[in-house]
Each structure stands twice: as structure tokens, then as C-alpha cells.
């Protein structure tokens, strides 16, 4: 380290590059797309128990709850109960799960909401930077470095509906090593009328080690054990039962920082996921008329899986000239999926994808900024596809920016779409039902062509920002599951011998506008207004199918967000949302009427010496019970109190 014995070394010695390119947030005015940042003051003031709830604060997003522990999040619709066209990353690690219908598994987040530094939401496709999973958008969660964490923090939340959350985090510095360890337990009684009470245990470790001025090593590790009820009372094939899932990971990221302009990052991740969900179903002639009345058939079901993921990535940022900054990298991800129920005859699948990406940022003048980037990604099913993007930002004045972006993105269908085959056997030998069958030929990647115009005003003097985005997204080859006759012979007797099959023939065109206005006179005071308008048209009528996609996003939605500190040590926060009618990509009778919801939080700071304490009361979802996912699941207000201590 630089610090020697001589007093003058403080002036003359070397220091590590702390605010390196990977740690500095890109100014929104320079990004090749629209970015919404939710910072820590807002996260805390929201009172949210999960990060997914915060996406209600971002224009264009839809948030639903399949059940109490499985939030659904989508950007511009096109989702179902496994939204899979957007990506969530935590410190560069994907929260996207590769088994079954894939998508983002929020409940497997190991990091505590208080350890999040900021959430950067890139509104729009960012496959150019992050690949296929970021097809329609990406949420980047950036956690606090261990050095920027209180020595000891505790948080207790207790509330209605059995809400009981306990969190503790400790941080300690050992010379060049900073360590933070967080642990927590969360639970609640679930949704009224559903079997979905749950309990989560989590641990999360972050170490920042500075072995030399030009090297930094980050180590992240974490694990979650999740116990929940699942199933539906009275539903034979999905009986109420206990499920246990777990997830753990270790990640090492080595940064080489020869100077403030250059950074090389090499990351390796290993992650394991597991679900135990095995049960038997007893079928009688009541469910299966072909059966003689005296006979029963036992169907063994095992939705359990294990997934082992290994991922290696290299990223290099440098400036060959003062006006040019280049980021390029390459990566490989391998998932070993063992999920016998989903992949008949039960073989484990190894799925590999590789990517090469680059972006050139050219500051052509004080006013013009040009971003040109591309991602080439290939997997075991499809050869390399190129997802390019061109973004041009023009500074009318330092406070007013105009932006145009145009590009193309691909989403590689994942293993279940390519070769999912779910069969159910009676007494182990009699084929009763094929729930899913593989596509007749390998599915081509879904394609998205987008263009947008943005305007950003950042009026420093008025502490106000205005972000307007007008977009058009044209998608084709969208994969959709459709019931088709099973190719098996003899056809399985149940479900009329039909099995769902993925077909990549949907075309969708989305256009609309998003507006975000934020007045923020101080870090803890704000007044924000979000509005989004999304119009979706499809070719579904041409191919004579139900209009699944058409209503998958509300035509209009709006939010009002306010935070203020009327007296010292007091803080109030209100978020009110209006969500127009929509459907989570199911049948027409799953359509939801428009709804409104309000979340409120009041907090009082109570500092005792150097101990910072805060007592807060949050009431989420104030107002009448209403449906946010399917019409028959209605949720209403829940109040809870949180005590936070920082020492």
C-alpha cells in the first residue's frame, strides 16, 4: 500500500482508484437510452419489503403478484406468470433462472434492501450490453461497497398478516479488506384464499479487498433457503403442499485499474439452485372417466430440479483517445439443468451460451455524443445473432438533451422452449398426459427492432428533471405456447391428447410514450409524476388465436410519488399508482379492471449518541381490495412497523 512511515507520504504516495469506471454511474444524459435511478433515500422511504415493488415507481413497468412471494415484473407487457423478457442483475450477477419457463426469481435475492446503493433501470432493450435476457429491459441492482456500510445494522419489521422480518448486517475493516455480512429471516402468512405462506432465510457476504493500488478484488457470496406452501385447495393435480427451494452462489470479480481511464474486470460465478417438490396424485374415475369405477391410478409428480451455473466474463474499458471510450468483453455461461419432469425422459441438460460485445462512446464535440454498440450471442440451439444499437445524444444546452436510438435485439429461446417435454405417468408406466411437447423444429431467436426519441431536461437550479421517451418496438418470431395434438402414439388419454407446444409465430408492435417528472429539492424530499402510454397491436387475429399479447400492458398508467420531511427527524412518503386494465397473458377472463393503490410510510428518526435509530410505519396497498394478477386473487392493505438501528 501507498502509506509508508513518512508524514509526507500522504501527499506524495499513491492511492487506489476508488471511483473507477465500473463504480461511476453513467450520467443519464449520456446514456444511449432512458434510465430511471432509484437511490437509497427513495428505496428506504418506500418502505418496500421487496425490490420488485419498487418497479412500480418506474414508468412502463407492470408489477403483479402470482402469489405472496412471487412478484411478477415486466416492461411493456408480453408477460405471463413467468415473465422472461427482461433481466435483473445484482452486481453483475443475473437473477434470471434457466429452468422451466425461466424468468426473474425475485425471492432468491440474497441482498438486503438496505444494502442496495441504487437501482438503475434501463427502460428499453439492452441486449447490446447484457445479451438475450435483457431483451426488453434491464434492472441493475448495485449494492453498497462494504466500506460504505455501518458497523452494525439491525432491522425488525412486524406487521399484519404475519409479517415478521429480521435483518442484521455487520461490517468490519481489516486494513485493505472490507467485509460485510448480512443475514435475515423474512416471512408472512401469504394471500387470503391462497396456499402461499412463506419463510425465507438468507445470508449475503461481500468482501472488497485492495491488495495493491491498481488491483481490487470483490468477493460476493450468498445463499437463500425458501420454504413455502404451494398448490390450490381442491385442485387434484396441484394439491396444497410444502415446497423448499434453495439457491447459493459465489462470485469473484477482479479489477485491474492501471489508471482512472482504464479498467479490466474478470468475473467468475458459480451458482446452485435446487427445488424439492415431489408428491403423488391419486386419480379415480371421477377425474378420468375411462377408468373403471373400482380402480385408482397413482401419478408420481416431481417438479424438483437442480441447476448448476458457471459463468465467466471479461470486460475491458479504456480510452484510446480523450474523446473515445471503449467497453468490450466476452463471456460464457453454462447451466447444467437436471429437471426430469420438464425434460422427458429425464436427461440432464447442459446449456451453454457465449457472447462477445462492445460499445464505442464517441464524444464528437461538446454537444454530440455517439454510442455504437453490438452484442453477438450464440447458444447450443442457435448460431450467433448480432444485436446492434446506435444512440445519438445531442446536448441542446448542458441542461437539455435530445436522444435518438435505434437498434435490434434477439432473445435466444431457453432449453424448456427448445426441448421441454413434460409427461405424467400413472403407476409409473401408463402415459396419461403430455403437458408440454417440444417444438416441431428448433425455435429461432425472438427478434425486436426498436427506435426511440428521448428528451431529458435536468434543471439544476429548479432541482427538477423531466424525461420523455417516445418509442416503437416491433417484435416478431415471439414464442407462444399453444395446445396442439400430442405427437405420441397412442395419444395420451387426458387433456384430449393435447399438449402445449411453443410456436414462434407471433408478431407484436408496441408503441407509446413515457414521461417522468421529478422535483427533488433535497435528497429526502421529492415530488414525482410518472405517466406511460402503451399501445400493443398483434397479428394474433390473423393466426386466429386468442389475443394474449394485446392486453398484456395497460394502455395508461400513472404514478405520483412524494417524499418530504416537514419537521426535523420526521419523514413522510407516499406513492399512488393508477394502473389501467390489463391481463397477465392468460385467457380473456383473466383480464383485470383498472385499479389504484397507495403506499404510505411515516418515519421518525431517534438518534441516541452515535446510534442512529429510526421507527417507521408503512401501510401498503391502502384502499379497497383489488386484483393485480388474476381477478379472483384480491389483496388489500397491510400495515407494518419497522425499527432500524445503525451503530
Amino acid at each position, binding site marked *: *500500500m*501507498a*502509506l509508508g512511515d*513518512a*508524514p*509526507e507520504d*500522504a*501527499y*506524495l*504516495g*499513491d*492511492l*487506489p*482508484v*476508488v*471511483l*473507477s*469506471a465500473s*463504480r*461511476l*454511474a*453513467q*450520467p443519464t*444524459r*449520456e446514456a444511449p437510452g432512458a434510465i430511471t435511478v432509484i437511490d*437509497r433515500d427513495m428505496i428506504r422511504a418506500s418502505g418496500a419489503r421487496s425490490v420488485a415493488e419498487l418497479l412500480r415507481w418506474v414508468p412502463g413497468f407492470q408489477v403483479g403478484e402470482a402469489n405472496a412471494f412471487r412478484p411478477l415484473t415486466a416492461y411493456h407487457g408480453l408477460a405471463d406468470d413467468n415473465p422472461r423478457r427482461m433481466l435483473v442483475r445484482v452486481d453483475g450477477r443475473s437473477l434470471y433462472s434457466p429452468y422451466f419457463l425461466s424468468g426473474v426469481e425475485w425471492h432468491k435475492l440474497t441482498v438486503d434492501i438496505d444494502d442496495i*446503493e441504487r437501482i438503475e433501470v434501463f427502460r428499453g432493450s439492452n441486449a447490446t450490453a447484457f445479451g438475450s435476457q435483457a431483451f426488453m429491459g434491464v434492472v441493475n441492482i448495485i449494492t*453498497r*461497497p462494504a*466500506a*460504505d*456500510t*455501518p*458497523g452494525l445494522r439491525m432491522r425488525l419489521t412486524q406487521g399484519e398478516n404475519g409479517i415478521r422480518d429480521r435483518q442484521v448486517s455487520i461490517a468490519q*475493516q481489516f*486494513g*485493505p479488506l*472490507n467485509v460485510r455480512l448480512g443475514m435475515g429471516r423474512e416471512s408472512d402468512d401469504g394471500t387470503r384464499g391462497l396456499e402461499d405462506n412463506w419463510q425465507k432465510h438468507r445470508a449475503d457476504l461481500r468482501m*472488497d479487498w*485492495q491488495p495493491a*493500488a491498481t488491483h481490487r478484488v470483490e468477493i460476493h457470496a450468498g445463499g437463500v433457503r425458501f420454504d413455502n406452501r404451494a398448490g390450490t385447495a381442491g385442485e387434484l393435480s396441484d394439491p396444497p403442499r410444502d415446497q423448499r427451494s434453495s439457491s447459493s452462489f459465489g462470485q469473484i470479480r477482479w479489477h485491474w485499474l492501471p*489508471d*482512472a*481511464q482504464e479498467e479490466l474486470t474478470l468475473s467468475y460465478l458459480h451458482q446452485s439452485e435446487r427445488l424439492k417438490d415431489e408428491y403423488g396424485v391419486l386419480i379415480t374415475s371421477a377425474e378420468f372417466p375411462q377408468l373403471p369405477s373400482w380402480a385408482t391410478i397413482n401419478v408420481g409428480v416431481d417438479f424438483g430440479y437442480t441447476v448448476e451455473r458457471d459463468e465467466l466474463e471479461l470486460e475491458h474499458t479504456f480510452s484510446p483517445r480523450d474523446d473515445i471510450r471503449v467497453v468490450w468483453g466476452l463471456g460464457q455461461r453454462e447451466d447444467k439443468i437436471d429437471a426430469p419432469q420438464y425434460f422427458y425422459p429425464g436427461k440432464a441438460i447442459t446449456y451453454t451460451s457465449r457472447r462477445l460485445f462492445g460499445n464505442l462512446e464517441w464524444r464528437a464535440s461538446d454537444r454530440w455524443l455517439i454510442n455504437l454498440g453490438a452484442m453477438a450471442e450464440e447458444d447450443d440451439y442457435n448460431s450467433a445473432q448480432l444485436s446492434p444499437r446506435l444512440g445519438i445524444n445531442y446536448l441542446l444546452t*448542458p441542461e437539455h438533451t435530445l436522444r435518438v436510438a435505434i437498434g435490434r435485439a434477439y432473445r435466444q429461446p431457453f432449453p424448456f422452449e427448445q426441448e421441454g417435454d413434460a409427461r405424467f405417468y400413472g403407476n409409473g408406466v401408463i402415459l396419461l398426459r403430455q403437458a408440454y411437447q417440444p417444438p416441431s423444429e428448433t425455435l429461432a431467436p425472438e427478434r425486436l427492432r426498436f427506435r426511440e426519441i428521448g428528451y431529458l431536461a*435536468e434543471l*439544476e437550479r429548479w432541482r427538477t428533471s423531466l424525461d420523455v421517451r417516445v418509442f416503437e418496438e416491433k417484435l416478431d418470431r415471439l414464442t407462444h405456447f399453444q395446445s396442439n395434438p400430442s405427437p405420441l402414439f397412442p395419444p395420451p388419454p387426458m387433456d384430449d391428447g393435447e399438449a402445449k407446444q411453443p410456436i414462434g409465430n407471433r408478431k407484436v408492435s408496441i408503441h407509446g410514450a413515457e414521461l417522468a417528472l421529478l422535483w427533488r429539492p*433535497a*435528497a429526502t424530499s421529492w415530488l414525482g409524476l410518472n405517466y406511460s402510454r402503451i399501445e400493443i397491436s398483434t397479428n394474433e387475429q390473423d393466426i386466429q388465436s386468442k389475443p394474449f399479447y394485446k392486453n398484456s400492458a395497460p394502455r395508461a398508467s400513472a404514478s405520483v410519488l412524494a417524499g418530504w420531511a416537514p419537521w426535523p427527524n420526521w419523514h413522510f412518503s407516499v406513492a399512488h399508482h393508477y394502473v389501467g386494465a390489463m391481463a397477465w397473458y392468460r385467457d380473456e377472463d383473466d383480464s383485470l379492471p383498472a385499479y389504484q393503490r397507495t403506499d404510505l410510510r411515516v418515519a421518525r428518526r431517534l438518534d441516541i449518541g*452515535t446510534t*442512529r435509530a429510526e421507527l417507521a410505519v408503512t401501510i401498503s396497498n391502502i384502499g379497497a381490495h383489488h386484483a393485480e394478477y388474476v381477478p379472483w386473487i384480491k389483496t388489500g392493505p397491510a400495515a407494518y412497523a419497522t425499527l432500524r438501528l445503525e451503530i
Partner: protein
Amino acid sequence: MHAALRLFLCRLVASLALGAMAGPGWAAPPLIIVNSSSDGAYAEASAALRSQLQRTMPWVEIEEQGWEELAAQRLEGSRMIVTIGTQAARVVAGLSPRQPVLHTLLPSSAYSRLPNMPKSGATVSAILLDQPAERQIALIRLALPDWKRIALLTGSDSEALNLRLGELARERQLEVREANVTADRDLYPALQRVLAEPAVLIASPDAQVFNSFTVQNVLLTAYRHRSPVVGFSSAYVRAGALLGLYSTPEQIGQQAAETVQKVLSGETLPPPRPPRQFEVAVNTNVARSLGIQLDSAERLGNELARREGRP
């Protein structure tokens, strides 16, 4: 050829004349440099000092010595001693030489702790590394005119400096947020307190508060609070401070040469001084990320120098 001959004659005449004045040890060179190290910043300062004297007083013979083998008799006969770095300053001060001593390339905290300091400053002086508080505040006003709040973290070595910075800032209608840091664990809560609202954090060369281990905490926390940091070295700016104000070893060596010139021409030793020449550095990446519009480092430095009455 002619130049070399002239130089030789000059030196001969000068050493005879000066030597006669200095008494018995006339063979000793008039200027002795005692250096803390023979490389890095110490070598740069020494090189600048020598080359400047070479140009202005080519007849002055200079001898450089390391501090390790220094003894009192080796200093005898010289007219002036310049030390470079704290280690050399300590050894020379310990020998209490009678001739004028100029200590350079050391912070004021180290200077004030040197042994055997004479009551009157006539024979011992220094060119310190510390930038004057006036200059720091002037830089903040110049570079960040819209920022009305500064934050200070005070440890035992920065009490006097921060007191002065606070006074000056208040005179300029700046709000001052201060906190004391007496132990490592104070740092995090202190940063949270002073940066509760965005402020310009002035890092002080107080090793208890700002060192290479705490630099991460300081820069990351300040960044998250959208608060720019003003550092006291080029390394600080490279690490992530928005602005840096510092003097290079070369600038200090040049200033030392000017003082040597005056003393050898018969003037008395001036009192301890901050560096006169300085550099301003700017981290453009951090400025962009924080959305702060800044003039170039060069323009800021020139304007600051102009306001101090230098071209």
C-alpha cells in the same frame, strides 16, 4: 569548452571568496542538501533545486548527502543546509547546526514536531507541503460557485487547519458542516453526518482521518451523497476526488532554490511558508458522473494564480 572553463573559474573565485568568509572549513561546499531518499519525489525535488541554482548561481557548489551517514562535522563549513523530506529534517534538526537550515517537502505537522527547534525562526525555516486554507477556499469558490456548503472532518492533526478553513468559509457565506474523527469507527457516522446534504468535502492531510485505507470509505460515501471531494494530491484525484490542489516536488524544489539564492546573497531566512506554486487537477469522469460542469484544470490553476497576484 569556453563555458566549462568559465564555470570552473567562477566556482574557483566563488569558493575562495565564500570560503574565506566561512572560516576554517573553506573546502566545504556552500550548500549541503540532505535528502531522505535518492529516488521518487525526493530525487525530483533535489533535481529541481539543483538545476534552478545551476541557472541562477552556477558558481555555487552543491553537495548532496543521504541522512543515514550524516554527522555534525560533515555539515561544518557550509553556508546553508536544505533538507528534503521529514526523515532528513529530523536528523539535521537533531544535530542543531548553526547555519541556516531550510526544511522542504514535509507537512507542517511534521515540521512543528522537529527536535531542537530554536525559539526565534532566524536560522530554521521551511517550505511546507500544506496548501494554505485561503487557496483551498478560493479554489472551491472558483470551481464550484454554486456550492454553498463545505464539509470538514477533523482529527488531532487537522484541528488548526480546519479551524482556519471553517473561518474563511463562513466569511465567504459558505455553510460549514464539521465532525470530529478520533477513532476509525467514528469515520462512517461522521461522514453520514457532514454529508447529510450534498457538500464539498475537503480532505485534509491528517493521516488519522484520510489515509490509503480510509480513502475508499471517504470517496464512496461522498460519491453516494453526490458530494464532490477536494483532495490534496494528484493521487487523490486519480482515486476519485473531483478536484485536487497540491504542489509537485519540482515546484517545491524550485521555490527552495529561490530561498537558497536569497540567503546566499545575504538575506535572512524567511519564515516557514506554504508552497507558492501549485497545481490544480480535475477528475473529469467524476465530474461527468456527478453532473458538475467544471473549467479545465489549467484554467482553474491559472485563474487561481492570477487572483493570488501571480501571472
